[in-house]
């Protein structure tokens, strides 16, 4: 062992499904093998895959058949990053042209989803025409669709005909009394229906649709928006119920509500949950159901890895200048996919013993596997858990400069192991205006951006990044967040574990919270 062994503590951090001994894909590790293989390259279904594989949404579905109080759709917006927003609407033919261009330019793009900006099943012709054309031209791209569920039962057969392996249903409640505070109206059988009756119909359709998909063996993820004071406590019951009906993954997302977005909640001042409240609820739901915690609540036309958005590179005007040899692209995509899967498998084996990822990983895997080393943190069971923020551009490595990070992944280290618990969005600190006093085009100074970043990282005690400047270093330290650039290019979980052990050795993990120094 290359690190000090204090005592080999047994799993003492509770029975969280997403816990386990440092498994990246802990939340999904219990899945039956065929399901695991189905999601292993789907960034929105597998936490592990989201470090490597990219996705794209095509905005072909503008119409919606319900109103949600958190939603305000925008069709020509380049700036906001949230569901319901897109820069330009596409016809099915345009969507396929775009998909082929993206697939050729980003060979790790594995999945095409239709998620709006309205409800895909309120635009069934456009949605299914897109899937039909795409499966003809690019059979190697996985298809998925996301819906509010109102029209789901009538389209389940068509979904299964188009070989759509993954469906996401947004289910915010089971109780119409709660539903009427989330959905002001639905369009149902040629009428606008409001209030309790509307919510009751929507809930019934969602539950029917979920059961029908599960019967047909289609993987269902359930998304829920956590709205403090409205459905937050209730979502534990939702989690249990959707698991019973056959959903395999639950994604509890925080409400996004800003007055500028124009949604009911935004304007009426409904607050969003804090990161700590979200994590507490996700942990409570995780007792029953695998939880997704890496969702970025992306736009209806997002392109790229989950944390990034490259949609601006593939707007219609630019597509005209791209020529694509899709057969060539397909063989490149196959090679890329196989290389990533090999690497993920090697990484999984690698979890048995902490080690830096190297070119020899493949050759080493067999040796490591033989040793069967448990990957426990090896700290006393009394040690308190610690949250650490990580700057990464993907590949599961600590490989990003602090100032270039638009978001940080958050990991929790505890005597039970290392687990991914979520991410925090920030403004870009280093955007060419790093000098104090200078302002970016929106009038924000580097100092105020740094302040907001520190606020976004509240609760985290360590920040792991590839590099960090002197000034942000001091500010983070002063705020009780220890920056650490010593683990650049290392595997995230290994580095988190190493730092956690170091903290144990220096006595920073006494059960009473104290500052890591």
């Amino acid at each position, binding site marked *: 062992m290359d690190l000090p062994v204090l005592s080999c503590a047994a799993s003492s951090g509770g029975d969280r499904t997403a816990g386990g001994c440092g498994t990246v894909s802990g939340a999904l590790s219990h899945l039956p093998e065929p399901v695991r293989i189905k999601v292993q390259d789907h960034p929105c279904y597998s936490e592990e895959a989201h470090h490597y594989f990219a996705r794209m949404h095509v905005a072909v579905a*503008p*119409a*919606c058949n319900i109103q949600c109080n958190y939603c305000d759709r925008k*069709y020509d917006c380049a700036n906001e990053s949230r569901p319901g927003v897109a820069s330009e*609407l596409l016809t099915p033919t345009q969507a396929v042209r775009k998909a082929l261009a993206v697939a050729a330019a980003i060979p790790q793009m594995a999945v095409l989803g239709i998620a709006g900006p309205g409800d895909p099943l*309120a635009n069934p012709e456009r949605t299914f025409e897109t899937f039909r054309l795409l499966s003809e031209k690019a059979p190697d791209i996985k298809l998925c669709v996301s819906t509010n569920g109102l029209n789901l039962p009538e389209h389940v057969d068509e979904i299964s005909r188009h070989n759509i392996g993954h469906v996401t249903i947004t289910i915010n409640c089971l109780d119409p009394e709660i539903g009427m505070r989330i959905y002001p109206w639905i369009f149902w059988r*040629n*009428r606008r229906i409001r209030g309790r009756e509307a919510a009751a119909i929507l809930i019934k359709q969602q539950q029917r649709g979920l059961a029908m998909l599960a019967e047909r063996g289609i993987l269902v993820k359930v998304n829920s928006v956590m709205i403090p004071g409205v459905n937050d406590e209730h979502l534990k019951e939702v989690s249990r119920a959707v698991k019973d009906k056959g959903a395999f993954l639950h994604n509890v997302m925080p409400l996004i509500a800003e007055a500028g977005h124009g949604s009911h909640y935004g*304007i009426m001042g409904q607050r969003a949950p804090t990161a700590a409240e979200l994590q507490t609820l996700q942990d409570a739901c995780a007792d029953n159901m695998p939880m997704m915690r890496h969702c970025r609540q992306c736009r209806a036309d997002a392109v790229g890895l989950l944390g990034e958005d490259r949609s601006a590179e593939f707007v219609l005007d630019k597509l005209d200048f791209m020529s694509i040899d899709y057969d060539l692209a397909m063989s490149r995509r196959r090679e890329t996919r196989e290389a990533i899967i090999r690497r993920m498998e090697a990484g999984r084996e690698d979890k048995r013993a902490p080690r830096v990822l190297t070119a020899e990983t493949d050759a080493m895997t067999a040796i490591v596997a033989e040793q069967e080393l448990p990957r426990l943190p090896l700290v006393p069971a009394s040690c308190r858990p610690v949250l650490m923020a990580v700057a990464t551009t993907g590949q599961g490595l600590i490989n990003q400069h602090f100032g270039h990070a638009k978001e940080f992944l958050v990991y929790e280290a505890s005597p039970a192991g290392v687990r991914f618990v979520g991410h925090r969005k920030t403004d870009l600190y280093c955007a060419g205006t790093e000098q104090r006093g200078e302002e970016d085009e929106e009038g924000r100074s580097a100092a105020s951006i740094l302040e907001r970043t520190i606020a976004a990282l509240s609760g985290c005690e360590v920040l792991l990044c590839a590099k960090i400047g002197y000034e942000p270093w001091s500010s983070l330290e002063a705020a009780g967040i220890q920056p650490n650039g010593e683990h650049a290019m290392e595997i995230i979980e290994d580095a988190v574990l190493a730092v956690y052990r170091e903290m144990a050795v220096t006595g920073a993990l006494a059960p009473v919270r104290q500052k890591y120094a």
Partner: protein
Amino acid sequence: MALSITEACINCWACAGVCPNQAIHADDPVFVIEPEKCTECMAEFPEAQCAAICPVECAIVDELGAALNPPGSLTGIPPARLRALSEAV
């Protein structure tokens, strides 16, 4: 007798798909109802379908210019609140 679409329209296509008379088409800057085809759904449905699905207040109006979905009727946001917000900006 025909309904029409105002500039409040967000071009979401919802109305075009539910119109029983195929009277609605995309146009610039917003969708348009062809008056000679529009029946206000009088014979077909209890509610004009475009107005029953439209997500935006004041986007569908009758011949007198009266909104079928007046302010506050869809979002539940009191009009006074919206006025206060726009004055603050």
